[in-house]
């Protein structure tokens, strides 16, 4: 059983947490036009990496806060824990982030709001 350091509560047993699966899957906004196939990639495809993997976790039986984790799925070593909305800082975490096939896909590009960018541009 993993020993997980919740960024808000400190070290707790794994059974207080739930794993929310792969991290850094940007959600394409409905206002942006992408193909059904590109949308399906976002909706259905999840990696099952053997090795360093970026995951979302939630302290379900504690503070109920979400956070990100860089974890080696073979050794179960927890390499880094970092807040939602941020990118990993560890070398292994960065490498795993960059190596992910999602980077610069149409679905990821479509996660940027068009209108708000236009508004800000005014």
């Amino acid at each position, binding site marked *: *059983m*993993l*020993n997980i350091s919740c960024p808000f509560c400190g070290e707790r*047993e794994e059974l207080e947490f739930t794993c*929310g699966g792969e991290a850094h899957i940007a*959600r*394409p*906004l*409905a*206002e942006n036009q992408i193909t*059904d196939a590109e*949308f*399906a990639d976002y*909706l259905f495809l999840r990696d099952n990496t053997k090795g360093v993997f970026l995951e*979302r976790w*939630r302290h*379900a039986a504690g503070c*109920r*806060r*979400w956070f990100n984790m860089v974890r080696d799925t073979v*050794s*179960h070593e927890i390499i880094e824990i970092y807040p*939602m*909305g941020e990118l990993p800082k560890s070398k292994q975490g960065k490498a795993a982030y960059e190596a992910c096939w999602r980077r610069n896909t149409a679905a990821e590009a479509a996660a940027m709001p068009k*209108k708000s960018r236009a508004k800000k541009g005014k």
Partner: protein
Amino acid sequence: MFKSSSKNHSGGDMRLASGGRINRDKPLQFTFDGKTYGGYEGDTLASALIANGVHLVGRSFKYHRPRGIMTAGSEEPNALIRLGEGAKIEPNIRATQIELYPNLKSESQNRWPSLNFDLGAVNSVVARMLPAAFYYKTFMWPASMWMTYEHFIRKAAGLGKAATDHNDPDRYEKTNAHTDVLVVGGGASGLMAALSAGRAGARVILADEQNEFGGWLLSESDTTLDGHAADRWIADAVAELEAMDNVTMLKRTTVFGYMDHNYLTMMERVTDHLGETPKHMPRQKMWKIRAKHVVLAQGTHERPLVFGGNDRPGVMLSSAVRSYITRYGVAPGRRAVVVTNNDDAYRTALALVDAGVYLRAIIDMRPAPATPLVSEAMRRGINVYTSHALVDAEGTRHVGRAKVARINPKDGSITGDAFYLDCDLVAMSAGFTPIVNLHSQARGKLDWDDQQLCFRPSTYHEAAQCVGASNGIFDLGDAMADGAKAGAAAATAAGFKGSDAKAPQVDAPVQDYRPLALWKVVSDANPGAGPKAFIDFQNDVTASDIKLAVREGYHSVEHVKRYTTNGMATDQGKTSNINALGIIADQLDDKIPNVGTTTFRMPYTPASFGGIAGREIKGLFDPIRGTRMDQWHHDHGATFEHVGQWMRAWYYPQSGESMDDAVQREVKAARTTAGLLDASTLGKIDIRGKDAAEFLNRVYTNAWLKLPVGRCRYGLMLKDDGMVMDDGVTSRLGENHFHMTTTTGGAAGVLDWLEEWHQTEWPELEVYMTSVTEQWSVSTLSGPNAKKIMNKLGCSVPLDDENFPFMSFKDATLAGLPVRIFRISFTGELSYEINTPARLGLALWKNIMAAGEEFGITPYGTEAMHVLRAEKGFIIVGQETDGSVTPQDLGMDWIVSKKKDDYIGKRALERASMSLDNRKQLVGLVTENPKDIIPEGAHAVLDPNQPMPMEMLGQVTSSYYSPNLGKSIAMALLKGGHKMMGETVYFPMIDGQPPIKATITDTAFYDPKGEKING
């Protein structure tokens, strides 16, 4: 030197006149298979049985061979006992671990009709027809017969019988602990590790599976520490450790599991040794430990030699024989033969002689051993046969003579004529295996030691260190120094200043720890016909089985294990692993390290389910939630059903009423006068913050920004794949404040869902969600007389439709109680969902019932609620939906905004596949015969006479008899259903009845125009 030849003394005929750690002032009586025997406090069941000359204690698993006590520890594969009486019966307990208590009751297992005469032993006669993987091979054809075979196989399989009374009267506890250093094993090296770490100030837990600390030191009479008997040093060390506040000493505690991040589980047998469990104490306690560092001092297991009849009662491990003599003051036999491939058994031989046992000979397989121990044995006049082996331990229910022959120590072939030695005890030793089970569970790696013939720990996956014998260091002095060093290192790693505790001066026989590498004596009989030589005693796996598996092509050790069952189950290869590997390697003409080893699994020794469950049984297994009105429902005869974790009132049968009668009466009352439902279980979430409306706009499919304060709106939530996830009514309490309701079962999931989206996708929105489900009690009053009852109760706000329209709410007082009334309806009738602070719920409910009495108000349960909403065609998420249903499929396109930029599920609904004509769509069904009720889940077909497999259109999701319409109604998800209005479909029945014929209709069966909503 036996205590007495008289048969009536209490300690047993084979009890030695002196010695042992038993308390001779405390004689105890116990029974085995109904016969009463005597023993002493400090005995195990095994030592007490041996003291009484009882060696035959069970029958083996497959061949029902007579089996005796082979070991003196938790590795015992044979002596599995059924212990206790009535509901306290526990099967498969090792006699070597059962501490004797007054009036202990025990029984042998796996025998019928009796231990001495067992019919199953016929398996032994036909053993040549029961080779490895017998079941796989024999019962494969014809496949149709499997059901017949299985019946008999199941009857014959399994070891031991559990209690037939399942109400275990004992209490079990669980506890969590954090520690700097966990030391597993309280033998010589474990005690040293604990001393080092404890003196450094680290928090230490020392766990040992036995009833006292000291390990094998307690069984050695030829060893002194600092010039004194070993037990004096043990007592000093234990006293020092017990005096330390930072050290927890746990006896009778087995560490049975080692998991990630130094998480270990152990079972403490708190009161098992007392027989009667004191009321204030648990029977067992499971510990869950998180340790910064782990020191594994588990010691070794001695290996049996592989020769014919090595499983016969009276054949024991050499170290066990020594333990029974030294620790328990018992002679395991009167005429002994020692057989060995190493030095250690010579110490047993000397102990036997010292105890007055007639030692026939030492049979040493080594060609020319010349060590101090061998010289000592010869000096004492013991017959030593070198280059000899024991070929067969002959006898029936006990060994009677040993067949001995000269061998070629290189290949094990017999080179001379055999001769016989009469004996009733064979002490055997094939060398020692470090116990690496926990190390292996923790994914530690092993290296093969070509000198000591064993696997030793090499690299570690967790912060752990094996020490002493379990690290392959067999010399006592070195092992103790090893423990001291590891204890200090562990304390240092945990942030303390550790230094090695000084090991005592050890005086023990000098030993050569290199056994002869000879795994099996070649039999002089034809292959398969010779006496059975066992590798895994518990699973009845013989040397021939292993060889057969290899011959049949199973070369991977993992395959051999599964094909033969060697090292499986509770034994986990404790005594069998290395012998099996040696034989596989021989057979493949390869080396053991190339063959590899199997992975040891948890648990190290079996852990009771009671301990694992702890207090989480019965009512505490899964908490049951009840509303504040629960007692009233019970008092009024309600039956209950599970809804999520809740128990909800299902229906309220009056005397003589069937369920159908009661539900029909309740449904009718709600439409003709008034019904009252306990709706407190509905999920309720308080949502506030300046972006609350925007947040709702994104999680619901419809528009929320312009909902006026004081009004309510029905909403549908989708997952991002466009499928319906939950529904409910949400009300605007203030500009930035909403009250959301969810389905009863979905409440926790919806709150998690909202939090997930807020925290991970839209953290820029200022919104706060709080569950208030249990803060409110809800009574839903519904029916044409609802308003009259409300007025009678003195409702503080006007109830006319202009002031208080449908889909709005008011804060008010009712019957003098503070309430928030929602005018929403799940029945289609004029309806008030009256919320009151939870503690006032019962008072409000009773007031409403009293006021409604003159109108014939009727409490109704969840079943009637289902019928009422079905009459209106209202869906229930999870009944009409199953995770593959969109709002359009439900005919609820009206609730899906076309204007919003985005909401969860919007893009998914635009996928081409979402608008296909043949999607399953929700429709109503009216049966041709109004009394036919289609079973829920029934499949629809267009032509019931088509050949099978029929083309299915879809399935019925809800189906009831509607008393208000006087006919059967149903809803179904049918392919292309929305375009099939008025068509006929059939529902073939599995019970042979004719298909039910039905017409497809709209789902609004009752009051389709909604005219009843205002009463």
